[in-house]
């Protein structure tokens, strides 16, 4: 039987491997339990949430409450609207970042022009800058411009999240693309723009999809920007979920869990669908796997 090739450090069966599997198992119990718990809690009735732990009769009623006017009364935020806001903000932010970021990433990936590194590192530094340093002045500016509690305002500020990600990931994809492919298209008689559209763009499509989806996730998950820069009308889901925590002095653990579950679903689905590209994305193109 042909032995499968092993990567470095990999070993065939040994007595220690059972112990190793047990350690892994331990980690995954720890890792998955909170998620399981969130699902369980979301399925409990008001009575069950404080009297039971694992044995109860599940109900889907909580989701209905969260998404209906009843939830709005409790939190003074309409959760369905919040979902809608999140979608608009994140799709908008990602689209803006793509339109602006693709040419920049292409320029940085193809040419070593004067200042290219400065531009790239300035973009990257946004990723690591403390958010509040920007938020406080933005809070003042937004109030003057009427952008406070608007989707446009959120799309603008979310560029801090989506732009560095998209530009850096796509630059690494463009760098991997041989320049000779576009040169061949130029000599075939196509202009630079058509060569780019015809050759480069289709070939980095996986990179565009992966970085766009990942940027979407991070924009969706952002909390601190909308916490400060939105009021009650254009609140996205992350903020809306926390509203259930302090709802009218009474504990709505089950509703909170249901809201959290709804808010967590899109990122989880996206994450599972782009798993192949995640490493490169999460490391901003630094680790190409």
């Amino acid at each position, binding site marked *: 039987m042909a032995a499968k090739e092993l990567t*470095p450090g990999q070993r065939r069966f040994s007595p220690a491997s059972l112990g190793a599997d047990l350690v892994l198992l331990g980690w995954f119990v720890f890792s998955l339990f909170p998620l399981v718990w969130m699902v369980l809690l979301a399925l409990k009735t008001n009575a069950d949430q404080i009297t039971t732990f694992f044995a109860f009769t599940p109900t889907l009623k909580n989701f209905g409450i969260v998404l209906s006017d009843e939830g709005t009364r409790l939190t003074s935020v309409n959760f369905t609207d919040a979902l809608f806001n999140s979608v608009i903000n994140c799709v908008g932010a990602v689209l803006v970042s793509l339109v602006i970021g693709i040419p920049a990433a292409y320029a940085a990936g193809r040419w070593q022009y004067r200042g290219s590194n400065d531009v790239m590192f300035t973009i990257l530094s946004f990723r690591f800058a403390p958010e509040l340093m920007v938020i406080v002045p933005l809070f003042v500016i937004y109030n003057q411009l009427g952008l406070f509690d608007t989707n446009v305002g959120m799309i603008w500020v979310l560029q801090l999240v989506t732009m560095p990600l998209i530009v850096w990931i796509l630059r690494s994809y463009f760098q991997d693309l041989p320049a000779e492919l576009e040169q061949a298209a130029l000599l075939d008689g196509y202009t630079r723009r058509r060569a780019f559209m015809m050759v480069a763009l289709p070939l980095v499509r996986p990179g565009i999809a992966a970085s766009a989806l990942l940027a979407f996730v991070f924009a969706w998950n952002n909390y601190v920007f909308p916490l400060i820069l939105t009021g009650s009308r254009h609140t996205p889901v992350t903020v809306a*979920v926390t509203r259930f925590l302090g709802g009218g002095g009474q504990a709505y653990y089950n509703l*909170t869990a249901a809201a959290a579950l709804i808010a967590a679903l899109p990122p989880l689905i996206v994450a599972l669908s782009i798993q192949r590209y995640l490493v490169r994305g999460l490391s901003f193109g630094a680790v190409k*796997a």
Partner: protein
Amino acid sequence: MTTTAPPRPSGTGTPPRAPRPVPGWRRGLRPYLLSIPAVLIIVGILYPFVLGAYYAFLNYAAVVPRPVFVGLTNFVEVLSDPVFWASVRVTAIYAVTATVVETVLGVGIALLLNRSSLVGRIFERVLILPLMIAPVIAGVIWGLMFNPQFGVLNHVLGLGSTFDWLGEGRALWSVVLVDVWIFTPFVAILVLAGIRSLPKEPFEASAVDGASWFYMFRRLMLPMMWPYILVAVIFRFMDSLKVFDHVYVLTAGGPGDATRTLQIGAYQNSIVNLNYSQGSTYMFLLWAIVFLTARYLVSVLGKAQRRAAGSEE
């Protein structure tokens, strides 16, 4: 081999060509033109950033109708304030502990997953789930679990209903625990990808030479993995310096100032107390810390990458 004359395209021979020269300076400008939109956005973001830094030199607050330039007053005030230093301490403990624990655990998990046991292959698919959930949602979930009376943790662990995970003396470790829960997978998948991209030949060669697994790990694997580990460490350390989301939703900085990290401190100053200048001073100082740390870590990374590239030859 036939040498038939090509069918000529409609029209005659080669099409008439009128070369349109493009001046050299315009070709040199091309990458800049492509970057203009991005630069505009950068300016749009840099402006508030610079404005934020400027606030640190004003006495800007909601109660001050006409803020004026006060020089370094805010810095003197903040730097002599024990509350600020408590925040620095909390942030440092938080960032160092979280990064170290996540790195050790993440590398360990990556090594275990690399064995590709059946258990490992199943778990690899769900490894990233905590990482993809919004940290604030993670905070909400853990908050529910931490609840002394109704939370599941005290019940499962048999700690009774008085053990307060977010109480004095414990809260900081509890929020670090949540950070570990969220971000250990980040380190693990980066390092795992790194391990899998290592060249096989040196390992095969030393296995033929009869080297022990531990020797191979220390002398071959670790040096070659080091750049990947460092990338993960840089991301984790710099992110945990500015931690906000899940800590804020779990403790809002409390009890007292036990979990009041620098960003939460800045939030309290600027947004709760509406003292923009003091908040901005916090952020300016945090930014300086992050910037210097980043410069240092990136230079370490560069060296490690060069060394690893050398050891692969």
